[in-house]
């Protein structure tokens, strides 16, 4: 192999690994039903925080190197380049998306109905808040799915969480 191309491969591999790591490491650490250690969680949050920028830069660098390497690469190396670039692209895209909200969709504009019009069973559990005459109920069955709701009650912005 040409020595210059060798250097390019040595650059391509770490650039691609950075993009992959910045998405997959936090995704692996903050996965449901697993234990999160304090240091693991801190690492996950810091990677996730910088992931949109880091994965973009790393993906662009790996793409440029892959394009240069492509012409002279053997068929098997082309397969490696293409596969790695696919994973890099997934990492860069996923770092910009909140897949937790794919599992538990947010309520973008909450709608309310009068207590008298609600079809809720009287034994159904609700979270309730009251500011002056503004009394609101948030059925737990709904909140256990959405988890977070940004609301304004009597002018006070509140986060309803469950």
């Amino acid at each position: 192999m040409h020595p210059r191309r060798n250097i390019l491969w040595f650059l391509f591999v770490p650039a691609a690994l950075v993009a992959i790591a910045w998405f997959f490491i936090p995704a692996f650490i903050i996965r449901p039903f697993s234990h999160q250690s304090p240091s693991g969680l801190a690492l996950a949050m810091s990677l996730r925080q910088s992931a949109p920028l880091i994965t973009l830069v790393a993906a662009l660098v790996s793409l440029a190197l892959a394009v240069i390497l492509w012409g002279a690469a053997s068929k098997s190396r082309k397969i490696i380049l293409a596969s790695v670039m696919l994973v890099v692209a997934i990492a860069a895209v996923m770092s910009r998306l909140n897949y937790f909200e794919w599992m538990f969709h947010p309520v973008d504009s909450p709608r309310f109905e009068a207590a008298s019009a609600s079809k809720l069973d009287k034994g159904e559990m609700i979270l309730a808040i009251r500011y002056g005459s503004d009394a609101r109920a948030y059925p737990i069955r709904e909140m256990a799915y959405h988890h977070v709701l940004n609301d304004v009650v009597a002018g006070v912005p509140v986060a309803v969480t469950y």
Partner: protein
Amino acid sequence: MWTRTVNGRVLHFYLAGINNQNFLMRDKETGSWWQQITGKAIYGPLRGASLDLVMSDELTFGEWKSEVADGKVLAPVPKYVKKYDSNWEADVAKLPVVISFPGTELKSRDVVVGLELDGTSRAYPWDTLVKQSPVIDRVHGVPLLIAVGPDGKSFRVFKSRIDGKDAEFFLKGETEVDAKSTALIGTNSAATADHKTAASANPKTEAVSAAKTAPSWTLLDTATASEWNFQGCAISGPSQGQCLDRVPALKDYWFDWRNYHPDTSIYKR
């Protein structure tokens, strides 16, 4: 539940992850990470900031409706109605736990009511509360009244202090009529279920007037012998018109409460 104004800036939160089964949220404005149970920013530009707790209740819809005149209920989002789990309580209780505290007398998924006063925290096992309500206790020198409502599912915590004096509370009629039905049916909550059905036959009746005419669930205090409703307000007697101060409390699983309150004690009697 939290207010979401920090340093004069209104934040908008979204679900961002999970930390030992207590969820993490981030705010759109700064991207900081917040722990749901503590309301504290644990990472990002606002790290160290705290949200203010909103006094909230965990009630049955029936209890709430009987208390408020014209309340509003969060409507189901049609797109996601199918995702709502009507059996959430039992289903969540079956989920695996990833942290445990062996050597403590409660099991990870035991439900507790947790409260914290000036850094001193205590957990009240839900089963104990249902059996013994109203529970009178003292945490960090503060006299407390922990009451499970007439429906056996709603709860509230108050400072059991009337006009600056400590007071104790007991269920009115507990030693008379209810004692018989308790003996027959076995538990207090089962006994009060009868009253609940009777009260809900007339859903428009407001709590106060309902309690005046047919006091199905009324507390009496030892200091003034006034009658109190589940909202913590005196409906007759010398204290009539007064309401007890509320104490924030959280219904939670033992493992989660213990994880964030390592020094918590457990109520026993």
